[in-house]
């Protein structure tokens, strides 16, 4: 019981405690205007990304408005340089809160283009 309570306390610590219901603490990093309204982005970003991904992959359209790279360039954490990795990082903060699995980054880089320029994809090794 005590263990369960401690775990619960640790889990809620990552969220802002305004009001009775905990909400995710989202660090936007680069402020200003997003490519769509915030409400639209919150509800529909996955559709935008999916549409853009098919256009880029299949037809070679490389406009940046709804590209994942563009999201990462603005929203990667200044501390860790990434959009995932901790519950305070942009993508993971909401996805951890809503318990929605985030598959993008098994293949896509989590870092802005400039930061990821150097290096070789490293095999993590089988678990």
């Amino acid at each position, binding site marked *: 019981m005590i263990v369960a309570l401690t775990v619960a306390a640790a889990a809620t610590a990552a969220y802002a405690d305004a009001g009775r219901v905990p909400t995710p603490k989202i660090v936007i990093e680069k402020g200003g205007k997003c490519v769509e309204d915030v409400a639209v982005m919150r509800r529909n970003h996955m559709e935008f990304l999916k549409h853009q991904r098919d256009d880029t992959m299949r037809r070679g359209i490389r406009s940046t408005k709804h590209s994942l790279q563009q999201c990462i360039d603005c929203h990667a954490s200044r501390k860790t340089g990434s959009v995932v990795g901790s519950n305070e990082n942009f993508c993971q903060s909401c996805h951890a809160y809503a318990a929605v699995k985030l598959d993008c980054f*098994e293949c896509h880089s989590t870092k802005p283009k400039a930061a990821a320029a150097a290096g070789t*994809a490293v095999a993590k090794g089988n678990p």
Partner: protein
Amino acid sequence: MSDVNRGRRQFIGWGAAALGGLTLAPGVMLFAPAQARAPEEAASSRVRWGLLIDTTQCDGCTACIEACRRENHVAAPSRKTDPQWIRKVELKDLRSGKTHSAPVMCQHCEHPPCVDVCPTGASFKRADGIVLVDRHICIGCRYCMMACPYKARSFVHEALTDQNPDVPRGKGCVESCTLCVHRVDRGRNPACVEACAAAGRNAIVFGDLNDPNSEIAKRVATYASTQIRADLGLNPGVRYQGI
């Protein structure tokens, strides 16, 4: 695709080309030759990207392979199951003892067998002739690896980190040379071509096979070049000179 079917498609294609490319005056066409596209413009089937590899200029150097690894963040293979996008193949004429070395990568066929066998539609050919794997759809069945007569594809067995943002790749999918599609779309040459030129060999030429003014088309028209396993009728976009 059967030969009959292919002939029919080609005939329809010629009709479309004749309609689309109406000549207004000598040298003035309704469409312009291939140039760097705008980012929001889709790849066009008027373009056929290809490589011409001059094996007489190619020796034991591995600049292309290393550049490919750096560009696409592919680690050097330590086991034979590790991904490999380009490999050097040594050819030896048994009578004369003359050896050749040639880089072999995805040959970007016009009629790619990997696309024919793919059960999900992940393996596909882009309008401009570049054969790619859509990793969002790939289920990792590896039929394409068996179908490819050039052994060009490999499977990623292990989880990866630190990918190039332009080249997403990961565990459970098949992959192969993309002709550096992310560079080509921005009007740049593939990494291997750049590295080969930087190494002073200029053995690889990249360009539009459909554009009669491009260097690659001129060289293909002037010198004898061959496609590997041309007997299969796949019409690869990668051609070799001197083998």
